């Protein structure tokens, strides 16, 4: 072992024994533990959530096509080690005696579903259970409303085309029910081998082929890329994000939030490390000067401290990984009941993430102050006032910023988020530093009007203005980070809760004929079932924009999108749906604008390059209709209420045949009414969404949990910053305290002075935090999290108060040694 390493180890051991490394190692352990635990947690939970979303899709990836998918593509998937299942959907009439009903029939192979389970029951509206296998050859499974409509019993036969199939099960849940729910007829499931016998599929039949793929993430990713280059206009590729917007959005936001929180925890710990490292460095000026006297070169000093830092990094990070691993295990053990039973195991990746985080944070935040040690003049042994030139601002902040950018890139893989947080932090730091100085100046004015303790505190803050500003900034930024994370969490949870309130509509009724509208409305009112408006629907296809055929107007990618390729539901309404929002143009006045206009959903408009006042041409049946874009609207797709891409004013679609749609909430106790409803309106199709909503709720609950957990780590990291900041100024305070006591200051006076100083520091930091929080939160809400923002006046009350209490208490506690140690001991030690 080299001499340097041996010496570094020996000095480090002695420093450890003397307690010199505590703050540094503690901050490092927290940073790494937070990163590791969150990484473990999100990794496992993320995989669980992805699994659940995959359960809903029935696969990790699904290819929907109006034509048979080339067998070479399936072969390619199998060669890549993916599992493949094929399904085919078509509409057909089912017969049982005199009863008949139109059904959406799905023929599935033995592999279906690749993810999740089919569920079924043996009695109508009875308890449903997971089905290990799909329908066997010769079997058909029907949804409850089909069973009711056809009045068929389990074991009886049903005619479908040229074949007769036996009712094997009542189908209650089917993964991968992709497609347009509004036009979904009641579902029937048969085995793919029975398809030919039915003879219902022939040339010209409208078919929807679906190929499902499942496998590990990298393979699916690779195959997806391969596939995307080959897709034609007839293809639509769905993954777990695109397949289910309700869940996809929640997962996306949660991933962003968790990434952001980890980042903030790491940056906060970084700040603590920087402070710890600075104190460590300052306490080693004498050692460096002595070593230089003994003949060590600058390079020797550099090597010595770099080696020490590396050892601290390795040991601290390893310790942090262990703590993080234990923490997430503890959490999962506590939450066993809430989380899915088949939680995927932990990989090794989070340990690497945590370890790297530790090394990056240490290199970025601790290296610059420690490197200053090499510049200590040997003359310091004679003149203790000689301190090394401060490291250049570029080196200190550059390293910190580089570390943050590296971490952001790792945690978010998201350019906009990285830029927002980085720009926000830098701008905030500069602006807040100026503000802190201003506040400090203002506070100083008060000093003639306050008692001796407060004057002592105020003078202390002002005398060390630079240090005070740094501390106010550190505390302020810490409080700000905590406040932002807390705010985003609360609003995320509220958003999720309002997205799916307990009485969110759990049924869709579609195909309501014009003459049934009053009856259906009366039925729902009579049984006190809350529901949405009844919206008319006309099927139509967008064919041209400003007279240019659609395919020539939009990009190839946009042209492949499902909303372009298929018929869409067009509706009309006098009023804007409650959860829609106009983001461009104006909604028409009640009574109609008297001209041909249309309101377009925002994302569709963006994707298809549609702007206000564009002329859109629709094909409805055999006729064409032209309308000018009067407004652009946002839509809450995940609200479980009827939503539309295109809305017209009343009157414009009067000439076209329309059916109506509504959604309503029916509690479990009222379920038997459903059979009455179906019998009263036989042509109406009722879709039950309880199972899907249950899954969504479950996922949201887990995401909520993760969000809460991460918050705890951010708070912990924040407290380490507070501790490190106090430690950093402790030496100076000890010295001053000893001096003051020598001069006759009583303990009570000094205690009150300290309390005043720290409370003031906390209040100023809190004010700063409130200001920063408002700005950062506004940026994040509007630019990153896609949430609505409103002025957070509470922050202006809570942050200064919390700052005063927290920092006042911590400062009071942290400066106890100043009062406890005898002045003589202090003078001799420092």
């Amino acid at each position, binding site marked *: 072992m080299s*001499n*340097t390493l*041996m*010496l570094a180890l*020996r000095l480090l051991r*002695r*420093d450890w*024994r*003397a307690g*010199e490394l505590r703050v540094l190692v503690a901050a490092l352990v927290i940073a790494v533990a937070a990163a590791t635990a969150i990484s473990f947690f999100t990794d496992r939970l993320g995989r669980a959530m992805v699994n659940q979303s995959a359960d809903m899709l029935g696969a990790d990836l699904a290819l929907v096509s109006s034509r048979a998918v080339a067998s070479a593509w399936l072969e390619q998937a199998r060669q890549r080690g993916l599992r493949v299942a094929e399904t085919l959907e078509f509409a057909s009439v089912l017969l049982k005696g005199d009863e008949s009903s139109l059904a959406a029939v799905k023929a599935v192979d033995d592999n279906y579903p690749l993810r999740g389970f089919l569920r079924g029951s043996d009695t109508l509206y009875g308890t449903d259970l997971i089905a290990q296998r799909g329908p066997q050859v010769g079997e058909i499974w029907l949804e409850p409303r089909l069973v009711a409509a056809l009045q068929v019993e389990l074991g009886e036969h049903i005619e479908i085309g040229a074949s007769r199939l036996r009712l094997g099960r009542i189908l209650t849940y089917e993964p991968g029910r992709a497609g347009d729910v509004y036009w979904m007829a009641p579902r029937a499931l048969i085995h793919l081998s029975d398809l030919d016998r039915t003879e219902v599929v022939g040339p010209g039949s409208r078919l929807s082929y679906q190929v499902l793929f499942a496998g590990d993430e990298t393979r699916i990713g690779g195959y997806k890329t391969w596939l995307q280059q080959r897709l034609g206009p007839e293809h639509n590729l769905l993954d777990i994000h695109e397949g289910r917007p309700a869940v996809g959005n929640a997962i996306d936001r949660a991933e962003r939030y968790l990434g952001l929180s980890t980042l903030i925890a790491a940056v906060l710990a970084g700040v603590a490390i920087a402070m710890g490292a600075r104190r460590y460095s300052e306490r080693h000026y*004498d*050692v460096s000067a*002595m*070593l*230089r*006297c*003994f*003949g*060590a*070169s*600058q*390079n*020797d000093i550099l090597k010595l401290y770099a080696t020490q830092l590396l050892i601290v990094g390795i040991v601290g990070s390893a310790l942090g990984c262990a703590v993080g691993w234990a923490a997430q295990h503890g959490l999962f053990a506590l939450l066993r009941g809430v989380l899915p039973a088949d939680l995927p195991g932990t990989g090794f990746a989070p340990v690497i993430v945590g370890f790297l985080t530790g090394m990056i944070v240490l290199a970025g935040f601790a290296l610059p102050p420690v490197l200053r040690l090499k510049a200590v*003049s*040997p*003359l310091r*042994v*004679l*003149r*203790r006032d000689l301190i090394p030139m401060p490291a250049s601002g570029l080196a200190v902040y550059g390293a910190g910023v580089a570390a943050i950018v590296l971490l952001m890139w790792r945690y978010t893989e998201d350019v906009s988020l990285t830029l927002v947080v980085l720009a926000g932090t830098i701008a905030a730091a500069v602006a807040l530093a100026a503000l802190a100085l201003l506040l400090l100046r203002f506070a100083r004015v008060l000093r003639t009007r306050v008692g001796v303790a407060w004057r002592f505190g105020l003078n202390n803050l002002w005398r060390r203005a630079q240090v005070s500003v740094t501390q106010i900034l550190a505390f302020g930024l810490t409080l700000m980070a905590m406040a932002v994370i807390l705010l985003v969490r609360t609003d995320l949870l509220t958003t999720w809760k309002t997205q799916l309130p307990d009485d969110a509509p759990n049924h869709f009724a579609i195909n309501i004929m014009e003459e049934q509208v009053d009856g259906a409305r009366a039925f729902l009112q009579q049984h006190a079932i809350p529901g949405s408006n009844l919206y008319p629907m006309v099927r139509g296809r967008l064919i041209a924009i400003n007279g240019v055929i659609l395919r020539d107007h939009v990009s190839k990618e946009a042209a492949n999108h499902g909303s372009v390729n298929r018929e869409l539901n067009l509706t009309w309404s006098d009023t804007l749906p409650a959860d829609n929002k106009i983001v461009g143009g104006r909604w028409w006045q009640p009574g109609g604008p008297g001209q041909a206009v249309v309101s377009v959903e925002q994302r569709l408009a963006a994707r298809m390059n549609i702007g206000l006042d564009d002329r859109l041409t629709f094909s409805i049946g055999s006729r064409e209709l032209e309308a000018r874009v009067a407004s652009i609207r946002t839509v809450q797709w995940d609200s479980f209420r009827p939503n539309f891409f295109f809305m017209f004013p009343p009157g414009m679609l009067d000439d076209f045949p329309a059916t109506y749609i509504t959604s309503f909430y029916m509690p479990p106790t009222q379920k038997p009414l459903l059979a009455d409803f179906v019998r009263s309106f036989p042509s109406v199709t009722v879709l039950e969404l309880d199972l899907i909503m249950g899954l969504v709720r479950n996922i949201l609950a887990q995401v909520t949990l993760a969000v809460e957990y991460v918050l705890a780590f951010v708070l912990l990291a924040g407290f380490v910053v507070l501790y490190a900041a106090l430690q950093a100024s402790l030496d100076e305070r000890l010295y001053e305290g000893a001096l003051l006591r020598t001069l006759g200051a009583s303990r009570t006076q000094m205690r009150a002075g300290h309390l005043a100083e720290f409370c003031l520091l906390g209040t100023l930091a809190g004010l700063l935090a409130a200001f920063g929080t408002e700005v950062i939160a506004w940026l994040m809400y509007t630019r990153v999290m896609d949430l609505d923002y409103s002025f957070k006046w509470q922050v202006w009350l809570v942050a200064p108060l919390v700052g005063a209490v927290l920092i006042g208490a911590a400062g009071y506690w942290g400066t106890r040694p100043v009062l406890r140690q005898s002045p003589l*001991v202090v003078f*001799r*030690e420092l």
Partner: protein
Amino acid sequence: MNAVINRNSIDTAPGQTIVAASDLSKRVPTVSGDLDILSSVNLDIKRGESVAIVGVSGSGKSTLLGLLAGLDVPSSGTVTLARHRLSELDEDGRAKVRGQLVGFVFQSFQLLPSLSALENVMLPLELSGQRDADRQARALLQRVGLGERLDHYPKQLSGGEQQRVAIARAFAVGPAVLFADEPTGNLDNTTGSRIIDILFQLNAEQGTTLVLVTHDEHLAQRCQRRIRLDAGRIAGEE
């Protein structure tokens, strides 16, 4: 650490000049213009000699010591230490010379608070890569009468004891020149005398050249030569 002790690099016979200053000046900028702390100092110190630099506070004693030891660089003039022209070396070069030839004793002891007495003495030996640092350090502490206090930390030792540890540390690497800056400045008379005894005993035993800065006349009288500084110039020599 590569500051390996090599006594041959002293390359100076007893009685020959080991430390020489020629036309040495040190000027520092102040608010009211440049201030000359040292002006045209010339001196020769022979190997094995003991020299006291005396003068009132602010006469430039410590500055001269720092320049002679290579801890600082002069504004003009040269310092030669065992034939090494310090002004021609960079800071690392001077560090190497210090490591090979120089020992220090300070007024404020400058012990490392996180190291025990033994570890403080071991430090320069470890830096120079010596394998039996522990044994040598124990022997030296025994020699200065602190054999029973090896594991005590500086804050557990009295001022006199701390200075004895510092002396043991200074002699640990067998320096050719020992520079001492007010070694008794922080000590009472009795303790100071004991320290001086130890310093001169070790000096005699090891044949070290001793250069010390003091305004303690009693201590200065024990040196073979006294150089008196006044306002940065040599005002006399005895």
